[in-house]
């Protein structure tokens, strides 16, 4: 065991001293923080250029109301009231009414399209004569929005309000209904999204807190991404170091002093150290950042030890696979193509995590989280989503991962033992399987 630790310490020091480690340790948080800072900076730098819209209204009754609504909006809601100064934060919508003037619909629509192409207009709306009557089915539309910028939705979204308000108003007037009475009758009721009520230590019943779906998804996702990153940051350099020992013929020197299994074990322990270092740093940073932001109770502190356990197991499991790839190939190109299937297995949870977050207790989620290569990430996600899962599930998951890890480490050590001394050509899959079976 002492020799194993000598190898582990060297592996750890060599990995931590590399530029790649420094970059992932320092640069990645800087990039994250930077991207958030840029988002905040851009928030106030929105586009405030005027948006011109034309309305061709064949009913003649709707467009003036839209113009009024636009004027009202331009006068008030596009400004932010600061301390003493008034600042425009949204663009003005300038609505122009176009008279049909006896033109054919197609002709008029083409002319307006040309004006959009010439950038005189952002968009135009055509309201046909049938717009005031309720449509026979919900897919039928008598109002159309034409534009050349399909990703800019602010105008289209805003138009829905004044156009529908005006149409409803006209319909109610025709039926002699009082708009106030109708509005009161049709008032939409919001449903509050709450957690559960509980009883505190003094016996008082505490009110349920409002739940935030996005915030509740961030915790599980953050844990999954952190684990993925700590696996990759540890395992990739492990593969490169095995490849280095093989190509520079260091392996045979080492094998004169330590058995292949122990050598690999030492390297894996060093890699676990690298992974835990990066995970610890990130968890600490995340903890402080979340506390600073006032969301301290969203930090999944109760899962830190489970995270550590699953992280250690995952790094052993995937690290052994990466190490055996490094031992089976002869150059970095071969390594990259051979490591692809391993990467797919590592990243499998990314393809299914949304389902697992939304339905953590479903049978499919349970089955996926008990599939050992996916267990470390998916089981943590299921534990992180309130109200959590029965304790036997993460324990069973850990046992299954442990068994899988032992099998993989055993098989990988056989590949490692044979592969690391072979020079000249990479091993075929069949050969690798034979090494595993025969030893």
């Amino acid at each position, binding site marked *: 065991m002492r020799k194993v630790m000598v190898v582990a310490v060297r592996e750890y020091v060599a990995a931590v001293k590399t530029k790649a480690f420094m970059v992932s340790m320092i640069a990645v948080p800087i990039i994250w923080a930077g991207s958030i800072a840029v988002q905040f900076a851009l928030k106030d730098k929105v586009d405030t250029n005027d948006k011109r819209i034309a309305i061709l209204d064949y009913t003649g009754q709707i467009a003036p109301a839209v113009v009024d609504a636009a004027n009202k909006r331009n006068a008030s809601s596009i400004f932010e009231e600061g301390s003493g100064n008034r600042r425009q934060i949204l663009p003005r919508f300038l609505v122009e009414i176009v008279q049909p003037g006896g033109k054919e619909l197609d002709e008029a629509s083409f002319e307006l399209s040309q004006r959009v192409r010439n950038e005189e207009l952002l968009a135009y709306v055509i309201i046909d004569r049938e717009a005031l009557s309720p449509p026979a089915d919900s897919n039928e539309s008598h109002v159309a929005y034409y534009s050349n910028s399909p990703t800019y939705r602010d105008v289209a979204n805003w138009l829905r309000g004044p156009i529908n308000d005006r149409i409803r108003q006209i319909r109610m007037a025709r039926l002699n209904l009082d708009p106030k009475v109708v509005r009161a009758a049709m008032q939409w009721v919001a449903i509050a999204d709450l957690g559960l009520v509980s009883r505190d230590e003094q016996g008082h019943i505490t009110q349920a807190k409002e739940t935030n779906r996005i915030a509740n998804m961030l915790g599980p996702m953050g844990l999954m991404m952190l684990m993925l990153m700590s696996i990759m940051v540890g395992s990739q350099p492990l593969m490169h170091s095995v490849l280095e020992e093989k190509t520079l013929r260091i392996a045979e*020197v080492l094998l004169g002093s330590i058995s292949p299994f122990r050598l690999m074990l030492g390297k894996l322990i060093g890699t676990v150290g690298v992974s835990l270092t990066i995970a610890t740093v990130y968890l600490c940073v995340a903890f402080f950042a979340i506390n600073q932001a006032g969301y301290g109770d969203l930090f999944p502190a109760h899962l830190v030890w489970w995270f550590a356990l699953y992280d250690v197991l995952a790094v052993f499991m995937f690290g052994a696979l990466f190490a055996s790839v490094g031992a089976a190939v002869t150059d970095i190109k071969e390594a990259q193509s051979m490591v692809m299937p391993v990467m797919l297995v590592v990243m499998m949870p990314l393809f299914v995590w949304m389902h697992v977050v939304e339905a953590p207790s479903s049978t499919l989620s349970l089955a996926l989280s008990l599939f050992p290569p996916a267990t470390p990430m998916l089981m943590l996600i299921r534990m992180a989503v309130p109200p959590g899962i029965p304790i036997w599930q993460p324990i069973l998951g850990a046992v299954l991962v442990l068994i899988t890890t032992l099998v993989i480490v055993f098989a990988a050590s056989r590949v490692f033992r044979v592969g690391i001394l072979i020079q000249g050509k990479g091993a075929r899959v069949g050969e690798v399987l034979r090494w595993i079976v025969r030893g």
Partner: protein
Amino acid sequence: MNIIEIENVSKTFAEHVAVHQLSLTVPAGSIYGFIGPNGSGKTTTLRMIMRIYYPDPGSGSIRVLGESATGAANDRVGYLPEERGLYKKMKVRDILRFYAELKGRKDFRSAVADWLDRLDLGAWANKKVETLSKGMAQKVQFISAVITEPELVILDEPFSGLDPVNADVLREEVLALRKRGSTVIFSTHDMSVAEQMCDYIFMIYKGNKVLDGTLDSIQDRYGQDTVRVCVEGNGYDPNSIAGVLRVNDFGRFQELHMSPGADTQHILSQLIKCGHVNHFELIKPSLHDIFVRIARPVVEDSSGLRSVSKEVARA
């Protein structure tokens, strides 16, 4: 006492028999030289002694330092592989400490400094391996193999690629190791090194043991069947002399390998006819000559072709 006892061991890779039914004993305190052409099985034998390779199942046994189950990780054995490598990014001192620790040595600090000074590498202790010349890296590798003063030192081609000064330094260190009680096995392609340094010489050819014993005993087996001559004269062609099987021409002199039963007086009289004979000496064949006789695939003689198997059988 024997440090290594190999009995009837074979090693096969797929269809290729790398070592065939090999038996060998290495006495304690000796320097044992392994010779043989490239690909003949030297490194495979050394790796089997190191337990990096295991012999074919059921093919015999290998006992090292009296133990038949020692793993490759034997702290009492130092190993310098033929294919040597060092971590490029590590400092010389760190890598030696790493290897010393791997061999279980705890008080390695002074030993590392001593060895670096002895091999004239003191100034390079804090330099990264990638800055060293090939010869310096080889000396660092040598230190890593012997830093724990192991009972058995196995060196695969320790002198290849070294300049004469560094080769001498390393040779002295190997002799000093033996003086301090270590048993040394090394493989080499340099026959003069083997002749000068080795108490015993073992030659393997195509996986089979073809020579094993002291230099004298090996040479005795071949008898005095060689004459070293120096002849001046325009008409001198050693290949035309009757009774000469093969000629090794060293430029200033030639070694004539005589056919069995050839008469030295008759050869001398032929040489006198060719020119002025400055030197005529009946000698035992050199190790180089014996090696070439065995390893040359096919040897011609006056009676036609004869296969190498006769030499092998003779050995």
